[in-house]
Protein backbone atom coordinates (compact mmCIF):
# COMPACT_ATOMS: atom_id res chain seq x y z
CA UNK A 1 0.00 0.00 0.00
CA UNK A 2 1.29 3.42 -0.91
CA UNK A 3 0.84 6.08 1.75
CA UNK A 4 -2.47 7.79 1.03
CA UNK A 5 -1.11 11.26 0.52
CA UNK A 6 1.27 10.12 -2.21
CA UNK A 7 -1.31 8.03 -3.99
CA UNK A 8 -1.95 8.83 -7.62
CA UNK A 9 -5.52 9.35 -8.72
CA UNK A 10 -5.76 6.19 -10.81
CA UNK A 11 -4.37 4.05 -8.04
CA UNK A 12 -6.80 5.47 -5.52
CA UNK A 13 -9.68 4.83 -7.91
CA UNK A 14 -8.58 1.23 -8.20
CA UNK A 15 -8.36 0.89 -4.45
CA UNK A 16 -11.83 2.37 -3.96
CA UNK A 17 -13.21 -0.02 -6.55
CA UNK A 18 -11.54 -2.89 -4.77
CA UNK A 19 -13.55 -1.89 -1.72
CA UNK A 20 -10.70 -0.59 0.43
CA UNK A 21 -12.20 1.55 3.17
CA UNK A 22 -9.28 3.84 3.86
CA UNK A 23 -9.01 4.66 0.14
CA UNK A 24 -12.71 5.28 -0.07
CA UNK A 25 -12.51 7.63 2.91
CA UNK A 26 -9.61 9.55 1.39
CA UNK A 27 -11.36 9.93 -1.95
CA UNK A 28 -14.28 11.42 -0.04
CA UNK A 29 -11.94 13.86 1.62
CA UNK A 30 -10.66 14.94 -1.79
CA UNK A 31 -14.25 15.44 -2.87
CA UNK A 32 -15.18 17.35 0.24
CA UNK A 33 -12.23 19.68 -0.02
CA UNK A 34 -12.63 20.30 -3.74
CA UNK A 35 -9.16 18.85 -4.23
CA UNK A 36 -8.29 19.02 -7.94
CA UNK A 37 -7.28 15.37 -7.74
CA UNK A 38 -10.92 14.46 -7.33
CA UNK A 39 -11.83 15.91 -10.72
CA UNK A 40 -9.00 13.91 -12.30
CA UNK A 41 -10.13 10.74 -10.57
CA UNK A 42 -13.76 11.40 -11.47
CA UNK A 43 -12.90 11.50 -15.16
CA UNK A 44 -11.47 8.04 -14.74
CA UNK A 45 -14.48 6.50 -13.04
CA UNK A 46 -17.65 8.36 -14.01
CA UNK A 47 -18.52 5.80 -16.63
CA UNK A 48 -18.69 3.15 -13.91
CA UNK A 49 -21.29 5.01 -11.89
CA UNK A 50 -25.02 4.58 -11.70
CA UNK A 51 -25.30 1.13 -10.20
CA UNK A 52 -26.20 2.31 -6.72
CA UNK A 53 -29.71 3.40 -5.75
CA UNK A 54 -29.56 6.83 -4.20
CA UNK A 55 -31.92 8.14 -1.58
CA UNK A 56 -32.09 11.60 -0.15
CA UNK A 57 -33.59 11.75 3.32
CA UNK A 58 -34.48 15.03 4.94
CA UNK A 59 -36.79 16.47 7.54
CA UNK A 60 -36.84 18.79 10.50
CA UNK A 61 -34.53 18.27 13.47
CA UNK A 62 -35.79 15.65 15.91
CA UNK A 63 -37.82 13.72 13.34
CA UNK A 64 -35.70 10.63 13.97
CA UNK A 65 -33.99 10.53 10.58
CA UNK A 66 -30.79 8.87 11.76
CA UNK A 67 -32.62 6.11 13.56
CA UNK A 68 -34.80 5.61 10.50
CA UNK A 69 -31.72 5.36 8.30
CA UNK A 70 -30.17 2.91 10.76
CA UNK A 71 -33.25 0.72 10.61
CA UNK A 72 -33.47 0.85 6.84
CA UNK A 73 -29.80 -0.05 6.61
CA UNK A 74 -30.28 -3.03 8.94
CA UNK A 75 -33.17 -4.14 6.78
CA UNK A 76 -31.12 -3.88 3.59
CA UNK A 77 -28.25 -5.73 5.22
CA UNK A 78 -30.70 -8.52 5.92
CA UNK A 79 -31.34 -8.63 2.16
CA UNK A 80 -27.58 -8.74 1.63
CA UNK A 81 -27.38 -5.29 0.09
CA UNK A 82 -24.42 -3.10 0.99
CA UNK A 83 -25.07 0.40 2.24
CA UNK A 84 -23.36 3.78 2.18
CA UNK A 85 -24.56 6.65 4.33
CA UNK A 86 -23.62 10.32 4.21
CA UNK A 87 -24.85 12.09 7.32
CA UNK A 88 -24.82 15.87 7.05
CA UNK A 89 -24.97 18.13 10.10
CA UNK A 90 -24.77 21.89 10.35
CA UNK A 91 -21.54 23.75 10.88
CA UNK A 92 -21.53 26.38 13.60
CA UNK A 93 -21.92 29.75 11.91
CA UNK A 94 -19.77 31.32 14.62
CA UNK A 95 -16.71 29.13 14.82
CA UNK A 96 -16.66 27.19 11.57
CA UNK A 97 -16.47 24.05 13.66
CA UNK A 98 -19.03 21.31 13.92
CA UNK A 99 -20.07 18.53 16.22
CA UNK A 100 -21.18 15.54 14.22
CA UNK A 101 -23.07 13.00 16.30
CA UNK A 102 -25.11 10.96 13.82
CA UNK A 103 -22.84 7.94 13.96
CA UNK A 104 -23.80 7.43 17.58
CA UNK A 105 -27.44 7.40 16.56
CA UNK A 106 -26.65 4.63 14.10
CA UNK A 107 -24.74 2.58 16.63
CA UNK A 108 -26.03 -0.79 15.51
CA UNK A 109 -24.33 -0.42 12.17
CA UNK A 110 -20.93 0.26 13.66
CA UNK A 111 -19.14 -2.99 13.09
CA UNK A 112 -20.77 -4.13 9.88
CA UNK A 113 -18.29 -3.89 7.01
CA UNK A 114 -21.29 -3.83 4.70
CA UNK A 115 -22.10 -0.32 5.89
CA UNK A 116 -19.94 2.73 5.31
CA UNK A 117 -20.91 5.88 7.20
CA UNK A 118 -19.44 9.29 6.55
CA UNK A 119 -20.30 12.38 8.59
CA UNK A 120 -20.12 15.75 6.96
CA UNK A 121 -20.46 19.32 8.11
CA UNK A 122 -22.47 21.72 5.98
CA UNK A 123 -19.76 24.29 5.61
CA UNK A 124 -16.11 24.01 5.01
CA UNK A 125 -16.97 22.26 1.78
CA UNK A 126 -15.76 23.99 -1.29
CA UNK A 127 -18.32 24.94 -3.90
CA UNK A 128 -21.50 24.19 -2.02
CA UNK A 129 -22.94 21.37 -0.03
CA UNK A 130 -24.77 19.61 -2.82
CA UNK A 131 -21.61 19.52 -4.95
CA UNK A 132 -19.78 17.69 -2.18
CA UNK A 133 -22.56 15.26 -1.26
CA UNK A 134 -23.02 14.32 -4.92
CA UNK A 135 -19.34 13.58 -5.19
CA UNK A 136 -19.24 11.58 -1.98
CA UNK A 137 -22.29 9.60 -3.01
CA UNK A 138 -20.43 8.83 -6.24
CA UNK A 139 -17.50 7.49 -4.27
CA UNK A 140 -19.84 5.17 -2.39
CA UNK A 141 -21.33 4.06 -5.70
CA UNK A 142 -17.84 3.38 -7.06
CA UNK A 143 -17.04 1.51 -3.85
CA UNK A 144 -19.83 -0.89 -4.78
CA UNK A 145 -22.52 0.12 -2.31
CA UNK A 146 -25.99 -1.01 -3.38
CA UNK A 147 -27.93 1.58 -1.43
CA UNK A 148 -26.57 5.09 -0.89
CA UNK A 149 -28.36 7.41 1.50
CA UNK A 150 -27.67 11.10 2.00
CA UNK A 151 -29.28 12.40 5.15
CA UNK A 152 -29.63 16.11 5.84
CA UNK A 153 -31.51 18.26 8.29
CA UNK A 154 -34.18 19.96 6.21
CA UNK A 155 -33.69 23.45 7.47
CA UNK A 156 -32.62 25.41 4.43
CA UNK A 157 -32.52 25.47 0.68
CA UNK A 158 -29.06 23.97 0.37
CA UNK A 159 -29.98 20.98 2.53
CA UNK A 160 -33.17 20.47 0.56
CA UNK A 161 -31.17 20.63 -2.69
CA UNK A 162 -29.03 17.82 -1.37
CA UNK A 163 -32.05 15.64 -0.71
CA UNK A 164 -33.40 16.36 -4.18
CA UNK A 165 -30.15 15.30 -5.79
CA UNK A 166 -31.04 11.63 -5.62
CA UNK A 167 -33.12 8.92 -7.25
CA UNK A 168 -35.79 9.25 -4.61
CA UNK A 169 -36.41 11.78 -1.85
CA UNK A 170 -37.91 10.89 1.50
CA UNK A 171 -39.23 13.61 3.76
CA UNK A 172 -39.48 12.56 7.39
CA UNK A 173 -41.85 14.34 9.76
CA UNK A 174 -43.05 13.57 13.25
CA UNK A 175 -46.13 14.42 15.27
CA UNK A 176 -45.52 17.12 17.80
CA UNK A 177 -42.71 18.43 15.68
CA UNK A 178 -44.46 21.70 15.13
CA UNK A 179 -46.73 22.57 12.29
CA UNK A 180 -46.35 21.27 8.78
CA UNK A 181 -46.20 24.98 7.93
CA UNK A 182 -42.59 24.95 9.07
CA UNK A 183 -41.81 22.08 6.75
CA UNK A 184 -43.53 23.91 3.92
CA UNK A 185 -41.52 27.02 4.56
CA UNK A 186 -38.33 25.04 4.38
CA UNK A 187 -39.42 23.83 0.95
CA UNK A 188 -39.69 20.25 2.13
CA UNK A 189 -43.16 19.55 0.83
CA UNK A 190 -42.34 19.96 -2.82
CA UNK A 191 -39.38 17.62 -2.91
CA UNK A 192 -40.94 14.56 -1.30
CA UNK A 193 -41.38 11.39 -3.31
CA UNK A 194 -42.35 9.57 -0.14
CA UNK A 195 -43.53 11.06 3.14
CA UNK A 196 -42.59 9.23 6.28
CA UNK A 197 -44.43 10.09 9.46
CA UNK A 198 -42.05 8.76 12.10
CA UNK A 199 -42.63 8.44 15.84
CA UNK A 200 -46.11 7.30 14.92
CA UNK A 201 -46.69 5.98 18.44
CA UNK A 202 -47.08 9.54 19.66
CA UNK A 203 -50.29 11.50 19.82
CA UNK A 204 -51.12 13.64 16.82
CA UNK A 205 -50.12 11.17 14.15
CA UNK A 206 -53.56 11.08 12.51
CA UNK A 207 -53.71 14.83 12.46
CA UNK A 208 -50.34 15.06 10.79
CA UNK A 209 -51.27 12.51 8.13
CA UNK A 210 -54.50 14.44 7.53
CA UNK A 211 -52.60 17.71 7.19
CA UNK A 212 -50.30 16.17 4.61
CA UNK A 213 -53.25 14.79 2.69
CA UNK A 214 -54.90 18.21 2.76
CA UNK A 215 -51.80 19.87 1.40
CA UNK A 216 -51.61 17.37 -1.43
CA UNK A 217 -55.32 17.96 -2.14
CA UNK A 218 -54.72 21.67 -2.41
CA UNK A 219 -51.80 21.15 -4.73
CA UNK A 220 -54.16 19.18 -6.95
CA UNK A 221 -51.75 16.37 -7.75
CA UNK A 222 -53.32 13.52 -9.69
CA UNK A 223 -53.94 10.59 -7.39
CA UNK A 224 -51.52 8.19 -9.08
CA UNK A 225 -48.64 10.68 -8.84
CA UNK A 226 -49.16 11.48 -5.22
CA UNK A 227 -46.29 10.77 -2.88
CA UNK A 228 -47.36 7.96 -0.57
CA UNK A 229 -47.53 8.67 3.16
CA UNK A 230 -46.13 5.94 5.41
CA UNK A 231 -45.97 5.76 9.17
CA UNK A 232 -43.08 4.32 11.17
CA UNK A 233 -41.79 4.01 14.70
CA UNK A 234 -38.10 3.75 13.87
CA UNK A 235 -36.99 3.14 17.46
CA UNK A 236 -39.18 0.02 17.53
CA UNK A 237 -38.58 -0.97 13.93
CA UNK A 238 -42.28 -0.62 13.18
CA UNK A 239 -43.17 0.12 9.54
CA UNK A 240 -39.61 -0.34 8.26
CA UNK A 241 -40.35 -3.37 6.11
CA UNK A 242 -43.26 -1.51 4.51
CA UNK A 243 -41.17 1.59 3.95
CA UNK A 244 -38.32 -0.38 2.40
CA UNK A 245 -40.88 -2.12 0.19
CA UNK A 246 -42.31 1.19 -0.91
CA UNK A 247 -38.83 2.50 -1.70
CA UNK A 248 -38.09 -0.51 -3.89
CA UNK A 249 -41.46 -0.28 -5.59
CA UNK A 250 -41.13 3.42 -6.31
CA UNK A 251 -37.65 2.94 -7.72
CA UNK A 252 -38.71 0.01 -9.89
CA UNK A 253 -41.69 1.92 -11.22
CA UNK A 254 -39.54 4.93 -12.06
CA UNK A 255 -36.97 2.78 -13.73
CA UNK A 256 -39.60 1.06 -15.84
CA UNK A 257 -41.36 4.20 -17.00
CA UNK A 258 -38.16 6.15 -17.66
CA UNK A 259 -38.66 8.69 -14.89
CA UNK A 260 -35.52 7.53 -13.12
CA UNK A 261 -33.33 8.13 -16.16
CA UNK A 262 -34.96 11.50 -16.68
CA UNK A 263 -34.34 12.50 -13.10
CA UNK A 264 -30.75 11.40 -13.21
CA UNK A 265 -30.26 13.45 -16.38
CA UNK A 266 -31.82 16.43 -14.72
CA UNK A 267 -29.68 15.98 -11.63
CA UNK A 268 -26.60 15.77 -13.80
CA UNK A 269 -27.45 19.00 -15.58
CA UNK A 270 -27.99 20.74 -12.25
CA UNK A 271 -24.74 19.33 -11.03
CA UNK A 272 -22.76 20.60 -14.01
CA UNK A 273 -24.33 23.99 -13.52
CA UNK A 274 -23.28 23.92 -9.89
CA UNK A 275 -19.73 23.00 -10.84
CA UNK A 276 -19.59 25.85 -13.32
CA UNK A 277 -21.07 28.27 -10.78
CA UNK A 278 -18.52 27.18 -8.23
CA UNK A 279 -15.61 27.46 -10.61
CA UNK A 280 -16.73 30.88 -11.78
CA UNK A 281 -16.99 32.13 -8.27
CA UNK A 282 -13.56 30.77 -7.48
CA UNK A 283 -12.26 32.26 -10.70
CA UNK A 284 -13.52 35.73 -9.85
CA UNK A 285 -12.59 35.91 -6.22
CA UNK A 286 -9.48 33.81 -5.92
CA UNK A 287 -7.75 33.32 -9.25
CA UNK A 288 -8.21 36.82 -10.60
CA UNK A 289 -7.35 38.28 -7.20
CA UNK A 290 -10.52 40.33 -6.98
CA UNK A 291 -10.98 39.73 -3.26
CA UNK A 292 -8.20 42.25 -2.89
CA UNK A 293 -10.06 44.61 -5.19
CA UNK A 294 -13.07 44.40 -2.86
CA UNK A 295 -10.88 44.99 0.17
CA UNK A 296 -9.36 48.09 -1.41
CA UNK A 297 -12.70 49.48 -2.49
CA UNK A 298 -14.16 49.15 1.00
CA UNK A 299 -11.03 50.07 2.95
CA UNK A 300 -11.77 52.03 6.09
CA UNK A 301 -15.48 51.19 6.10
CA UNK A 302 -15.25 48.85 9.04
CA UNK A 303 -13.40 51.36 11.17
CA UNK A 304 -15.85 54.07 10.04
CA UNK A 305 -13.19 56.17 8.35
CA UNK A 306 -13.93 55.36 4.70
CA UNK A 307 -16.03 57.31 2.25
CA UNK A 308 -19.44 56.03 1.17
CA UNK A 309 -19.28 53.36 -1.51
CA UNK A 310 -21.95 52.42 -4.04
CA UNK A 311 -22.53 48.68 -3.78
CA UNK A 312 -23.62 48.45 -7.43
CA UNK A 313 -20.87 50.73 -8.58
CA UNK A 314 -18.10 48.78 -6.93
CA UNK A 315 -19.56 45.45 -8.02
CA UNK A 316 -19.58 46.69 -11.62
CA UNK A 317 -15.98 47.87 -11.30
CA UNK A 318 -14.92 44.47 -9.99
CA UNK A 319 -16.71 42.70 -12.80
CA UNK A 320 -15.24 44.91 -15.45
CA UNK A 321 -11.79 44.34 -13.96
CA UNK A 322 -12.50 40.66 -14.25
CA UNK A 323 -13.67 40.91 -17.85
CA UNK A 324 -10.64 42.94 -18.81
CA UNK A 325 -8.30 40.50 -17.18
CA UNK A 326 -10.02 37.54 -18.83
CA UNK A 327 -9.99 39.31 -22.17
CA UNK A 328 -6.26 39.90 -21.78
CA UNK A 329 -5.76 36.21 -21.05
CA UNK A 330 -7.64 35.03 -24.10
CA UNK A 331 -5.68 37.52 -26.28
CA UNK A 332 -2.36 36.27 -24.91
Amino acid at each position, binding site marked *: *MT*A*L*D*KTKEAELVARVKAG*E*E*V*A*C*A*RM*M*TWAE*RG*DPRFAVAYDAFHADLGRARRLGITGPPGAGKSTLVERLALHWRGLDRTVGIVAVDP*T*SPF*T*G*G*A*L*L*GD*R*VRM*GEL*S*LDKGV*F*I*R*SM*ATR*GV*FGGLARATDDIADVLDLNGRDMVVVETVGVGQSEVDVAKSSDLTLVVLHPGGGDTIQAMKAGLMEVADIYVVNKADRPGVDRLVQQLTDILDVRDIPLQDRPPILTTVATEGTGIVELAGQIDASLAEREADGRLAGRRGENLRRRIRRIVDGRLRQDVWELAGLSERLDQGTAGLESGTGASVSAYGLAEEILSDYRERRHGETQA
Partner: protein
Amino acid sequence: MEQPIRVLIAKPGLDGHDRGAKVVAAAMRDAGMEVIYGGLHQTPEIIAEMAVQEDVDAVGLSILSGAHMTLFPEVKKLLDAAGADHVLLTGGGIIPPDDIDALQAKGVGRLFGPGSTLVELVEYVQAEVGRRRAAAGSA
Protein backbone atom coordinates in the same frame (compact mmCIF):
# COMPACT_ATOMS: atom_id res chain seq x y z
CA MET B 1 -8.29 27.69 2.02
CA GLU B 2 -7.20 26.02 5.26
CA GLN B 3 -9.01 22.71 5.54
CA PRO B 4 -10.70 22.13 8.91
CA ILE B 5 -9.14 19.53 11.14
CA ARG B 6 -11.32 16.46 11.53
CA VAL B 7 -11.11 14.72 14.84
CA LEU B 8 -12.89 11.76 16.39
CA ILE B 9 -13.62 11.99 20.11
CA ALA B 10 -14.69 8.76 21.74
CA LYS B 11 -14.79 6.86 24.98
CA PRO B 12 -13.61 3.29 24.75
CA GLY B 13 -14.25 0.77 27.46
CA LEU B 14 -17.01 0.62 29.97
CA ASP B 15 -16.55 3.81 31.92
CA GLY B 16 -19.30 6.35 31.32
CA HIS B 17 -17.79 9.50 32.75
CA ASP B 18 -18.08 11.63 29.65
CA ARG B 19 -17.59 15.08 31.15
CA GLY B 20 -14.04 15.34 29.81
CA ALA B 21 -14.88 13.97 26.37
CA LYS B 22 -17.80 16.34 25.95
CA VAL B 23 -15.97 19.42 27.17
CA VAL B 24 -13.06 18.63 24.85
CA ALA B 25 -15.42 18.01 21.93
CA ALA B 26 -17.08 21.38 22.50
CA ALA B 27 -13.73 23.14 22.77
CA MET B 28 -12.50 21.61 19.54
CA ARG B 29 -15.68 22.58 17.75
CA ASP B 30 -15.26 26.12 19.04
CA ALA B 31 -11.69 26.08 17.76
CA GLY B 32 -13.11 25.46 14.28
CA MET B 33 -12.59 21.72 14.07
CA GLU B 34 -15.04 19.17 12.76
CA VAL B 35 -15.59 16.84 15.65
CA ILE B 36 -17.08 13.44 15.06
CA TYR B 37 -18.50 12.41 18.41
CA GLY B 38 -18.10 8.68 18.70
CA GLY B 39 -19.98 8.28 21.94
CA LEU B 40 -19.70 6.06 24.95
CA HIS B 41 -18.79 2.46 25.64
CA GLN B 42 -17.14 1.86 22.29
CA THR B 43 -14.85 -1.01 21.49
CA PRO B 44 -11.41 -0.39 19.91
CA GLU B 45 -12.73 -2.04 16.73
CA ILE B 46 -15.60 0.41 16.42
CA ILE B 47 -13.36 3.37 17.16
CA ALA B 48 -10.82 2.38 14.53
CA GLU B 49 -13.59 1.78 12.02
CA MET B 50 -15.07 5.21 12.66
CA ALA B 51 -11.67 6.86 12.35
CA VAL B 52 -11.02 5.17 9.02
CA GLN B 53 -14.39 5.91 7.46
CA GLU B 54 -14.33 9.51 8.60
CA ASP B 55 -10.73 10.02 7.41
CA VAL B 56 -9.97 11.98 10.55
CA ASP B 57 -6.68 13.68 11.26
CA ALA B 58 -6.78 12.75 14.90
CA VAL B 59 -8.48 10.44 17.36
CA GLY B 60 -8.89 11.57 20.96
CA LEU B 61 -9.79 8.96 23.54
CA SER B 62 -10.90 9.66 27.08
CA ILE B 63 -10.13 6.83 29.50
CA LEU B 64 -10.66 7.17 33.22
CA SER B 65 -11.09 3.53 34.07
CA GLY B 66 -7.48 2.45 34.28
CA ALA B 67 -7.79 0.31 31.16
CA HIS B 68 -5.59 2.63 29.08
CA MET B 69 -2.75 0.12 28.69
CA THR B 70 -5.17 -2.23 26.96
CA LEU B 71 -7.24 0.25 24.99
CA PHE B 72 -4.76 2.72 23.49
CA PRO B 73 -2.43 0.09 22.00
CA GLU B 74 -5.40 -1.84 20.65
CA VAL B 75 -6.82 1.19 18.83
CA LYS B 76 -3.34 2.06 17.51
CA LYS B 77 -2.83 -1.47 16.23
CA LEU B 78 -6.20 -1.49 14.47
CA LEU B 79 -5.61 1.92 12.89
CA ASP B 80 -2.25 0.80 11.55
CA ALA B 81 -3.71 -2.42 10.24
CA ALA B 82 -6.40 -0.50 8.34
CA GLY B 83 -3.79 1.68 6.63
CA ALA B 84 -4.54 4.69 8.83
CA ASP B 85 -1.15 4.92 10.51
CA HIS B 86 -1.05 8.64 9.64
CA VAL B 87 -3.83 9.36 12.17
CA LEU B 88 -2.73 11.05 15.40
CA LEU B 89 -3.88 9.04 18.39
CA THR B 90 -4.08 11.17 21.50
CA GLY B 91 -6.26 11.42 24.56
CA GLY B 92 -6.52 11.91 28.24
CA GLY B 93 -7.58 10.52 31.55
CA ILE B 94 -6.04 9.22 34.71
CA ILE B 95 -2.82 7.80 33.33
CA PRO B 96 0.32 7.46 35.44
CA PRO B 97 3.53 8.97 33.95
CA ASP B 98 5.22 5.59 33.45
CA ASP B 99 2.25 4.37 31.47
CA ILE B 100 2.31 7.53 29.36
CA ASP B 101 5.94 6.86 28.47
CA ALA B 102 5.17 3.27 27.58
CA LEU B 103 2.22 4.29 25.39
CA GLN B 104 4.19 6.99 23.60
CA ALA B 105 6.88 4.45 22.84
CA LYS B 106 4.14 2.50 21.05
CA GLY B 107 3.31 5.46 18.81
CA VAL B 108 0.57 7.12 20.82
CA GLY B 109 0.74 10.93 20.89
CA ARG B 110 0.63 13.22 23.87
CA LEU B 111 -1.72 12.23 26.67
CA PHE B 112 -3.37 14.79 28.87
CA GLY B 113 -3.87 14.29 32.58
CA PRO B 114 -6.09 16.04 35.10
CA GLY B 115 -5.62 19.80 35.17
CA SER B 116 -4.72 20.07 31.48
CA THR B 117 -6.26 23.06 29.79
CA LEU B 118 -8.45 23.08 26.71
CA VAL B 119 -6.09 25.56 25.13
CA GLU B 120 -3.12 23.19 25.52
CA LEU B 121 -5.08 20.40 24.04
CA VAL B 122 -6.43 22.33 21.07
CA GLU B 123 -3.02 23.82 20.33
CA TYR B 124 -1.37 20.44 20.48
CA VAL B 125 -3.81 18.90 18.02
CA GLN B 126 -3.55 21.89 15.68
CA ALA B 127 0.25 21.83 15.76
CA GLU B 128 0.62 18.08 15.47
CA VAL B 129 -1.96 17.72 12.69
CA GLY B 130 -0.37 20.71 10.93
CA ARG B 131 3.02 19.03 11.16
CA ARG B 132 1.71 15.73 9.85
CA ARG B 133 -0.18 17.35 7.00
CA ALA B 134 2.90 19.34 5.99
CA ALA B 135 5.09 16.22 6.15
CA ALA B 136 2.61 14.35 3.98
CA GLY B 137 2.50 17.24 1.54
CA SER B 138 -1.24 17.65 1.77
CA ALA B 139 -3.12 20.84 2.46
